[in-house]
């Protein structure tokens, strides 16, 4: 393949914006979570798991984790793009990151709905 510097993929804005929006979501959830945890009558497993049994908390917790994983996707991909030069290795790293994060997302849902 001819060795030329290629740029102009015309994306990046959505990811940059999403990284900021997901950060806000995580900040708000952290507050909500801290207040809920502090209001627990006792720090027992029962009380702890009961906290996540409510439909709303379950939903916002899932939202938090999806935000975390999207945020992490943009951040980790940035690291690969900054430092890893060979395109093939970068592609493999992108795919691995994506697979791991999608796996985590499924795992989170399974844990939340098992409680």
């Amino acid at each position, binding site marked *: 393949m001819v060795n030329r510097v290629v740029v102009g993929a015309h*994306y*990046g*804005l959505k990811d940059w*914006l999403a990284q900021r929006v997901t950060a806000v979501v995580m900040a708000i959830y952290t507050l909500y979570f801290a207040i809920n945890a502090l209001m627990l009558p006792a720090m027992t497993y029962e009380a702890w798991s009961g906290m996540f049994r409510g439909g709303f908390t379950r939903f916002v917790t899932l939202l938090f984790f999806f935000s975390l994983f999207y945020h992490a996707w943009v951040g980790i991909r940035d690291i690969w*793009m900054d430092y890893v030069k060979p395109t093939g290795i970068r592609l493999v790293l992108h795919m691995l990151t994506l697979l791991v994060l999608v796996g985590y997302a499924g795992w989170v849902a399974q844990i939340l709905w098992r409680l």
Partner: protein
Amino acid sequence: MSKRTVQFKIYRYDPDKDQQPYMQDISVELEASDKKLLDALVRLKVVDDTLSFRRSCREGVCGSDAMNINGKNGLACLTDVDSLAQPIALRPLPGLPVIRDLIVDMTQFFKQYHSIKPYLINDEPAPERERLQTPEDRDELNGLYECILCACCSTSCPSFWWNPDKFVGPAGLLAAYRFIADTRDQATSARLDNLEDPYRLFRCHTIMNCVDVCPKGLNPTRAIGKIKDLMVRRAI
């Protein structure tokens, strides 16, 4: 200030003679009238005339004598020599290929600058007199047009070190916003298209080394933020 002796540690590399770059210990006696680092470097030339560095206007306008001074990029002509801890360590601007001693090859830097089309694009026939702006519109160009392209900012930017071929860099992006912000320019959308790219613009991680080192006190990070704001406004 009277006569005094100043110690230096200077990066030396002559590709015709040296296998490796090395740091040279050298000192020079300054006259009372020598105020700036550039004055000291000119005196040093008398002690060792093989020392190479760029210089021209000696008053912070041409941007030729940018170098890494005690670990921080700056202009030799604007830096008070007495404000520096000794021995004063001088290195070429980081991240660019060294031609000799303190002289770097700025090709990559200017390539990125040219890639943003640093000139007014306006297809309307030129009016009889100049194209006018309101004072408010003109104010938006303050803090942008003053850039002298010394490359202190781009060569202190880690993102530019890692991807100098793809990331436009703080100097180029400041210049890009200078034309995006100009009400006389008609290519705003094309300019934003040109920058909407994960490498060209979004390698900026707001590290803000550029703001820290700019000898003209400019703020490329803010200009980059304004480019992103315009992209968001255009997209949603």
